[in-house]
């Protein structure tokens, strides 16, 4: 997203300068002439987008205004689902739980990944280390979740055996309502940090060396260089990473589905699992669609704010 906008700006500026000499009709024919070829190239992505994103999204928005149980036809109910949602204690609980998860997950994941990226950049550039860092990400989500589910088991899990051996009390990582969300957040930090670190590492490599040399000549120390050079120049990449990971983090589902299933009580009933439950176990597809639409709007607002506040489409190198 951000990388293309960085590259795209300059040609546009040049194009704008070259325009007046050419006639407008000529330009128009060129555009139409390109259209067919362009469509051919765009078609595969377009078909996929329309079929798997646009149509289901529009249909989902429609279903959110209906009462639909999958077996009889949808019945139009207007805003009834939305009104019900705002009065639903479980919805607000789900929002709270999901927010807690996102804060823990993204907070730790981003800081640790940045640290790893800096280590890779400054200490070792070995491909082997990079490969090892990526390994948890290559394991399927469900497998990662089950692996930690077993290792963190209260009675027979290896982590609790070690805790006891050290002399600490056993912890019901997934069963205790205080521990459950942090545990799930940690499992996904462990899985994703290597991948996030690689993305940030690529961003670090894109920062021109001469900027650092100038900073060194000016006598800036490491700390100052990090905050005044690295972070500002890494911002577009960091933002891309944040938009993608936060959006993904809000959609936490699989780890919950294979471990706590929303429990204990409602402690891990995150929004996606709540939607799934409403749709596939209660067969309230209208209500579930309305929940999905709300989640969609929330994610769109968050992404928009991030872009605005962090100025993701600008690069300080310009």
């Amino acid at each position, binding site marked *: 997203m951000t990388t293309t906008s960085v590259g795209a700006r300059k040609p546009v500026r040049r194009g704008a300068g070259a325009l007046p000499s050419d006639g407008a009709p000529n330009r128009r024919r060129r555009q139409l002439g390109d259209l067919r070829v362009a469509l051919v190239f765009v078609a595969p992505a377009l078909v996929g987008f329309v079929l798997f994103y646009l149509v289901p999204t529009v249909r989902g928005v429609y279903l959110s205004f209906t009462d639909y149980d999958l077996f009889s036809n949808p019945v139009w109910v207007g805003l009834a689902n939305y009104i019900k949602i705002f009065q639903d204690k479980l919805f607000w609980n789900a929002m709270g739980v999901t927010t807690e998860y996102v804060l823990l997950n993204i907070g730790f994941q981003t800081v640790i990944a940045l640290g790893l990226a800096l280590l890779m950049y400054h200490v070792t550039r070995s491909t082997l280390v990079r490969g090892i860092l990526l390994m948890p990400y290559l394991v399927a989500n469900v497998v990662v979740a089950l692996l930690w*589910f077993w290792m963190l088991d209260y009675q027979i899990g290896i982590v609790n055996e070690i805790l006891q051996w050290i002399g600490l009390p056993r912890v019901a990582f997934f069963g205790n309502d205080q521990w459950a969300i942090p545990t799930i957040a940690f499992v996904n930090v462990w899985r994703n940090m290597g991948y996030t670190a690689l993305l940030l590492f690529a961003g670090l490599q894109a920062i021109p060396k001469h900027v650092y040399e100038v900073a060194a000549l000016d006598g800036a120390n490491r700390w100052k260089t990090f905050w005044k050079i690295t972070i500002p120049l890494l911002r577009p990449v960091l933002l891309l990473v944040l938009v993608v990971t936060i959006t993904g983090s809000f959609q936490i589902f699989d780890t919950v589905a294979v471990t706590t299933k929303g429990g204990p009580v*409602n402690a891990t009933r995150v929004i996606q699992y709540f939607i799934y439950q409403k749709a*596939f176990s209660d067969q309230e597809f209208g209500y579930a669609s309305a929940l999905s639409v709300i989640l969609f709007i929330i994610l769109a607002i968050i992404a928009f704010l991030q872009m605005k506040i962090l100025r993701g489409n600008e690069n300080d190198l310009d």
Partner: protein
Amino acid sequence: MKKALGAVAVAAAAALALSACTSGSNQASSKGDASGTINYWLWDANQLPAYQQCADDFHKANPNITVKVTQTGWNDYWGNLTNSLVAGNGPDVFTDHLSKFGDFVKNHEILPIDDAVKTDNIDLNQYQPGLADLWVGSDGKRYGLPKDWDTVALFYNKDMLAKAGISDSAMQSLNWNPQDGGSFEKVIAHLTVDKNGKRGDEPGFDKNNVATYGFGLDGSGSGIGQTEWSFLTGTTGWNYTNKNPWGTQYNYNDPKFQQTIAWYKGLIDKGYMPKLETTVGASEPDDFGAGKSAINVNGDWLLSQYKGYKGINLGLAPTPTGPDGKRASMFNGLADSINAATKNPAASTKWVEYLASSACQDVVASHAVVFPAIKEATDKAAAAFKAKGTDVTPFTQQVKDGTTFLMPITNNAAKINDIMQPAMDSVMSGKAPVSSLTDANNQVNALFQQ
């Protein structure tokens, strides 16, 4: 090319319209062309070999029909089933559960079989009393033929009891009440041992560092508590609903129910039963197998698993008698239902009838994994268990004495579970008092008002 496609589309639409017509007020029947392959689903891996043999025998008797058996674990079974029924590629015949079939009937997803039962002269009295009637829906139609039944009993570790000086015969005559727990609680307390070797009924017992719990915990039991607390509530005169089957009002607000749950939760507070949080992801039988608990309540369907633990000397006893002086066990049964969208109703009906016949149920009996529904087959299964060295009287006795009660069969099962699971979890983890179940009960009953 375009024309051909159009023709295919028209044909497909016609076929769809036709099948939609036929599945309207359809009844299953074994008449008509009974051939081809039918898909059959079940969830219990322990029973798979027995039913595979039934399928093979059935194919020998009906060479035109092949039955493909698919087994999926309980946790995935119902989600997969709903999704595949909606997608139109569900199994022709599947194992159905009493707590679920009301929703299938409501959505017209399964076929009634009254006509087939009449025309094929199926004797409904050959089954254990009451089992066949369970499968009559709220619309008065029959949706399944009973295949098996189950009850619960106490599974205990004989070596631990011997060490504690409790005899096997004492286990056979325990009593319980919701006030002080009767001799049942005394036994549980005595079997609980802390890290220092102190027993639960001795002074100085450290309830925060328990090595072996007297009583195992599977979970909070949600709204049913089949293997958790139903054997206790059943002795207090409490009923789940105003009538069963097809009740429209639940009774979780009843003091008799709430007192029982309070006593049950008390076992955790006293350190005799593990905390609820430790059961997430854990398996009660596995913890029993690892020597972490001395007594479990569980169903006969887990007998082979409990028997399989190395180094565990397994004992069985009937559940304790309660305030009414009698024992109680939930009596649950399974049946096979026919998918309303099956392309092969005749073959599916034949297969369902075969599963409910003594030909198949005797085969199941010989595998000694579960009790078949036909009375004679039940006896054969008991004999097969005996031959394997297990006396299953604690399970069969409740049926003989008539001390069983039925699982609540109502509509809205999935939504009730969504309300009762968190509600019971809250109570069992000490986050809410038992009186909070009254509020949950109101939510449940509101479902029937819509």
